[in-house]
């Protein structure tokens, strides 16, 4: 900084032109490059004007304190009096600052000589650059210039650029011979200095602002670079303005360029810019999933890109900031989680269905069911069992239920400790609903735990009396059916018998006429002959059922099957029917062989007729042992792959004169089959599906001899 002495010399050098003292002062003040140079220069100029001494007090606009900032020729000891604060209203300096008017004090407690106090405040006639740029008139410098604002802490901050003003006061000891001129000169000099100071202050403020911004930018840059996630700043054309290192990994062509890497980077850029475009279309703060290729590692990574637009000071969008989050692992985990969840719910569904099914079964068994734990304690009962034993896990108060439980527990206890997996035993329990003792068939099974111990036992109680009743009902119904069948048969037989003799005569007569028919009557004769044969066939079949002539004797059913097939072999071959047999070893059945042969041949012929285009005929025989060693069944299955029987006909096919063959059938074949099987105390049933085929099942009783 230039010293006061040098400046004096310069003034003297320009002595010839410095007839008025103000010009050099202006020039000298103009040489100040920094705000802090202004006060020393001003004080020198004031002294140069002939004033004995001068000082400047500065207002701290943070604290409100007023303290001397610079002094010339003023003894240091006297300066303490020039310390004040903005709230000390009665202090001359404070009141001068608040009034913002220069004044001369002939006498005061501040100094023992007349003094001139000139308050100065940051002010400008023109708007500052910031206010100018955003087109506002709210500029503190201008407001101070027009004295709109007061010297108060809260007032002296610019509402536009947040700049803090300065306030100060210049105090000058006036010479003894001072006059009006002296005061005017001083005032002009100080105002001039303040104008310079304000401009420098403004420039410095903007410089400081720029510095602050640079620091902020640098800090932001550091923050951005230190982020592990890619951050990209793009302009409105999606061109990259700035990106951090994490982003460069994906979007900048690496130094060692290989074709693959370059292509990966290009592809990433393409994807990114497409994502940006789509986000721009869909809304301001949207996000997208983006699969990018790591240009260094070469692996695919899934990102979630979140973009936000950046705006300029005028509210114009400048570009977009995009932050990308690596969600590869997250998505994978998410996917895994979802997959596991789906599996879980599937499994849960299966379990639920199983449970529902089981519950449905238990509810519909219609028999009491009891589940006990390994200590024979009841843990689960169905409603029927509840009647007998009371609620599970409940203390039984009912005597009947207690007695029932005691019986059950004794059985279950023995069963649980036994070695068998299942057991059946009779159990006589009192049924409170029926109010009587009932014979139950207790069937128990074991459920084993992880260590092979008995975890639970399940017991189903079957009401044998009810079972017997059902069995008896069945027998009665069967008897009734047989009776009905027999009655129909007797009626049919009576009719057939009555028809039989006249028909015998007709048939014989037709035979006798054979040679005596003129040629032109031959067709009519043939009709007569064939239709009579048909009637004869019907009568023969009907009567056949009651020609109970054959003796029953032990026969192997397999031989009868083989005989029948041998007999019908040619017919079957001609009809293109393939025969498959599976004949197991059978015990002899006591039967009328001819009748069973008729049964088989009726069924085989029906099967052939059901397969006009050929097919498969399967005949199977096997032995079904009974519950005891003595009794059992011989089962014959005759299955075709033919046209099947319409469901509505299935009920009636065993009745007489029901046929699926139209004119060709007598409608008696199956009726006879049924009659024969019933006469043998056998069972006959049929299953059929239209277009798939029909299966007849015959069970003939066998007794071990």
């Amino acid at each position, binding site marked *: 900084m230039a010293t006061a002495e040098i400046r004096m010399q310069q003034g003297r050098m320009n002595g010839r032109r410095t007839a008025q003292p103000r010009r050099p002062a202006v020039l000298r003040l103009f040489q100040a490059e920094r705000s802090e140079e202004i006060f020393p220069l001003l004080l020198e100029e004031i002294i140069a004007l002939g004033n004995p001494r001068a000082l400047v007090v500065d207002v701290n606009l943070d604290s409100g304190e007023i303290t001397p900032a610079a002094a010339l020729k003023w003894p240091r000891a006297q300066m303490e009096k020039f310390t004040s604060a903005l709230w000390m209203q009665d202090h001359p300096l404070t009141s001068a600052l608040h009034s913002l008017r220069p004044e001369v004090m002939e006498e005061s407690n501040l100094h023992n000589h007349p003094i001139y106090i000139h308050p100065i405040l940051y002010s400008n006639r023109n708007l500052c650059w910031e206010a100018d740029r955003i087109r506002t008139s709210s500029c503190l410098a201008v407001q101070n210039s027009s004295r709109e604002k007061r010297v108060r802490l809260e007032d002296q901050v610019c509402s536009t650029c947040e700049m803090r003003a300065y306030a100060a006061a210049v105090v000058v000891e006036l010479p003894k011979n001072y006059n009006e001129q002296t005061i005017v000169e001083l005032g002009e000099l100080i105002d001039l200095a303040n104008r310079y100071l304000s401009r420098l202050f403004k420039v410095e403020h903007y410089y400081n602002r720029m510095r602050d911004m640079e620091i902020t930018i640098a800090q932001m840059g550091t923050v951005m670079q230190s982020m592990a996630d890619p951050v990209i700043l793009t302009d409105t054309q999606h061109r990259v303005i700035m990106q951090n290192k994490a982003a460069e990994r994906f979007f900048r062509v690496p130094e060692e360029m290989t074709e693959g890497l370059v292509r990966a980077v290009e592809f990433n850029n393409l994807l990114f810019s497409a994502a940006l475009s789509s986000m721009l279309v869909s809304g301001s703060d949207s996000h997208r999933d983006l699969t990018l290729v790591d240009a260094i590692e070469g692996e695919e990574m899934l990102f979630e890109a979140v973009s936000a637009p950046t705006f300029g000071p005028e509210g114009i969008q400048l570009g977009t900031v995009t932050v990308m989050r690596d969600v590869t692992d997250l998505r994978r985990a998410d996917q895994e989680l979802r997959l596991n969840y789906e599996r879980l719910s599937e499994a849960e569904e299966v379990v639920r269905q199983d449970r529902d099914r089981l519950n449905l079964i238990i509810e519909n068994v219609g028999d009491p069911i009891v589940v006990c734990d390994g200590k024979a304690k009841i843990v689960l009962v169905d409603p029927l069992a509840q009647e007998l034993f009371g609620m599970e896990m409940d203390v039984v108060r009912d005597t009947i239920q207690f007695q029932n439980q005691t019986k059950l527990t004794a059985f279950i206890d023995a069963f649980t400790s036994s070695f068998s997996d299942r057991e059946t035993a009779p159990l006589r329990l009192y049924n409170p609903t029926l109010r009587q003792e009932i014979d139950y068939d207790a069937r128990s099974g074991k459920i084993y735990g992880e260590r092979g111990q008995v975890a639970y036992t399940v017991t189903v109680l079957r009401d044998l009396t009810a079972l017997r009743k059902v069995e008896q009902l069945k027998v009665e119904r069967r008897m009734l059916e047989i009776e009905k069948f027999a009655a129909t048969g007797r009626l049919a037989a009576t009719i057939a018998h009555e028809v039989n003799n006249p028909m015998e005569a007709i048939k014989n007569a037709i035979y006798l006429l054979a040679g005596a028919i003129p040629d032109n009557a031959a067709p009519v004769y043939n009709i007569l002959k064939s239709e009579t044969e048909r009637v004869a066939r019907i009568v*023969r079949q009907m009567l056949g059922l009651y020609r109970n002539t054959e003796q029953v004797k032990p026969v192997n059913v397999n031989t009868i099957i083989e005989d029948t097939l041998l007999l019908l072999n040619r017919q079957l071959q001609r009809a293109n029917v393939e025969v498959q047999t599976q004949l197991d070893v059978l015990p002899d059945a006591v039967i009328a062989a001819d009748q069973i042969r008729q049964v088989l041949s009726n069924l085989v012929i029906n099967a052939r007729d059901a397969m006009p285009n050929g097919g498969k005929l399967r005949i199977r025989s096997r032995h079904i042992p009974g519950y005891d060693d003595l009794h059992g069944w011989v089962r014959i299955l005759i299955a075709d792959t033919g046209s099947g029987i319409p469901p509505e006909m299935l009920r009636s096919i065993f009745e007489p004169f029901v046929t699926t063959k139209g004119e060709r059938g007598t409608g008696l074949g199956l009726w006879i089959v049924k009659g024969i099987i019933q006469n043998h105390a056998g069972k006959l049933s049929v299953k059929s599906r239209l277009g798939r085929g029909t299966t007849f099942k015959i069970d003939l009783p066998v007794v071990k001899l």
Partner: protein
Amino acid sequence: MSADQKYRVLVVDDEAAVLLTYRLILERQGYEVVACGTSRAAIEAMESQQFDVVLCDYSLEEQHTGFEVISAARKINSDIPAALLTGYATKETADEAASQGIGVMFKPIEIEEFLATTSNMLRRENESKQEGSEEDTRGPESNHQS
């Protein structure tokens, strides 16, 4: 039996039309036929004439049965072949017929079967007679009382 000598057949049936047609069929086949409508008429016929075979309806007039006719015939000729013609037979009937060596033909009878059965019975009878006694070709009388 000489070739020109015709076999004699006794046919019994209470239905006149049936009886007539049987007779005509058998006659056309070359048998000498006596047709009777009742068991009484048949037994009377047997007392005066000899037959080689008896074909008899099972149910005859007034609860009479074919068995009576055949028993009567067997009293005269114990080896005479016989067959019951019937639309319906119980197990007992069939058993009894079988035990006496009487054939059973079920009505409606296939005429071919009817004729074949008749001629078979005659041939078997003829063969057994030839085995039994070479000289006696008209065997039935000689065995009457046995």
